[in-house]
């Protein structure tokens, strides 16, 4: 269908899909380091990420939409992260959680740390902090939802 002919139906369908995607981000249980505990904390009672529809932490990458890279990515782990990312079905999103994942953080001067997971997988939202508080990560997820809906400017 040409761009000019996109009927009301396709637009509505597209909108509905976007709405569904943004409201049902199932994260993958990929805990690497310190930030993984704070990632578990957003799942826990105090901050309860299930309010945003991200309740189900799927263990299998085939069934998850969101990869929260939580914790330092070492050079040895990076190919595995790439493989897990490749196993996920489109549309898939990545949140880089913590400064180690963003630019290497405190370990940037070392010899085994990847300076930013965006060299390995494309990242949608960066959440700085070491580790980010659960609220900050939740804000990151809200930012991702806005990005999916095309609302954010940050």
């Amino acid at each position: 269908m040409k761009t000019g002919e996109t009927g009301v139906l396709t637009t509505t369908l597209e909108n509905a899909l976007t709405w569904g995607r943004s409201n049902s981000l199932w994260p993958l249980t990929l805990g690497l380091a310190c930030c993984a505990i704070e990632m578990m904390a957003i799942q826990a009672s105090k901050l309860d990420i299930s309010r945003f529809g991200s309740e189900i932490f799927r263990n299998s990458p085939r069934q998850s939409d969101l990869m929260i890279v939580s914790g330092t990515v070492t050079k040895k782990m990076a190919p595995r992260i790439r493989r897990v990312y490749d196993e996920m079905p489109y549309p898939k999103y990545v949140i880089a959680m913590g400064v180690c994942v963003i630019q290497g953080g405190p370990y940037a001067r070392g010899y085994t740390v990847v300076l930013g997971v965006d060299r390995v997988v494309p990242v949608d939202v960066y959440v700085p902090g070491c580790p980010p508080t659960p609220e900050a990560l939740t804000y990151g997820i809200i930012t991702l939802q806005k990005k999916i809906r095309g609302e954010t400017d940050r």
Partner: protein
Amino acid sequence: MVDIISESKGKDGRKIVLVSVENLIPFMKEMRTNGFDHLSLVTAVDKKDSIDVVYHLHSMERNEYVVVKVNTKNSVVPSVTGIWPSANWDEREQYDLVGVKFEGHPNLKRIFLPESWVGHPLRKDYDLSKVQYINMDEDGEDYVTFDAGDGW
């Protein structure tokens, strides 16, 4: 009684015994029969021209503590894995990071870094500016490359 080179007291109030490389295994066996059943730590310290290997021995029953030091010029030390199984991973780690070869170790492989990593990072002459990359081949085995295009 095995000969020791010197005996001193450290800042932490623990006895430090310096033994030669040849006498290490007999001395350690003697310590084991003396009741030092817990090998707490194996450390290798790069002193630029030589390497100190430091063993922290501990006796659970008597709560005694002894530090045994060995100085080696060619970075080869006999392994104490036969005396304390706990030395197994420790020695692998020190081989990995400092490059001390423990003779007689059953499985002396790198533990943290992939097998083909060049150099031993905790050596003082390790060049951090030469960046090494790790990638994974088809079978899931790691290989090391200096080519930035292949790594992450």
